[in-house]
């Protein structure tokens, strides 16, 4: 149930995590898990297609790091991604406020 609900907001979550700095896919997924206290559990393999899509949309860019023992594809937010994140955060605030008001939280 949470997994299904999460899919609709995955872009926002990924952008928000990468707003704190460049990271590779594994670190992004770990951050998603740890920040949600384990609530946001998706099959990890399904996060990569979303990262690639965000990159194709110009919201992220990636490069391969060469300074570690293993090659890692590092993602980082583009200026367009930062603008999109700000817009989606604003939308989320309004949405969550409306939901909270409706359900009485």
């Amino acid at each position, binding site marked *: 149930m949470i997994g299904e609900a999460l899919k609709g907001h995955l872009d926002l979550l990924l952008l928000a995590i990468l707003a704190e700095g460049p990271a590779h896919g594994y670190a992004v997924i770990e951050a998603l898990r740890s920040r949600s206290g384990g609530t946001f559990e998706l099959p990890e393999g399904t996060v*990569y297609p979303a990262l690639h899509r965000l990159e194709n949309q110009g919201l992220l860019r990636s490069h391969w790091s060469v300074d570690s023992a293993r090659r890692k594809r590092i993602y980082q937010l583009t200026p367009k991604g930062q603008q999109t994140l700000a817009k989606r955060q604003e939308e989320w605030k309004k949405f969550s406020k409306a939901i909270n008001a409706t359900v009485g939280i």
Partner: protein
Amino acid sequence: MKANRIQAYLHKLRHRLWMHGLADADTLAEVEGHLLESVEAGLSQGLRLEEAEQCALERFGSVKIVVRTFEKERNNNMQKLLLAIAIVIGLLIAYVDSRPTWDDTGITAGTLLLSSGLLTFLGYRRPWLIALAIGLWTPLYETYLSRNFSLPGLILFPLFVLLIACMGAYAGWAARLGIRKTFHMA
């Protein structure tokens, strides 16, 4: 060592992505790096290698789920472009076929067959939709111009045209699959 479990998963994933026209070296390298890092994390938490691999694979998701997600997320633009081309080709065929000076059914049928086949060969994943996009317009336009609402006009002719387009589309799709399999096996 049982790193084979990860390698077996990667082999299966590579094959399935490739079958769907989605495999690329960067994606596979990225997945491999993720799985190995996940195994290392498991080992550092005190899991045995087999347990760490099992845990890493379970968390990553089945090949089927991962491929399905990649398929949904990627290549949509190419698919849309091929479908748009199919519609344009279908409209052109319908226009040419409807002209009073045109009476070569063989060329019309051949064009339907070849264009449907070419578009699925180039990578469109739903042969039936390509067949519809190319083959639908000729009978529709024919019916519109002739006002022929008889059984052959309404059912048999469209079925005939769509059958030809389907044959082409599935032949192109099968040829693509065959070539990919052949080169993959080699």
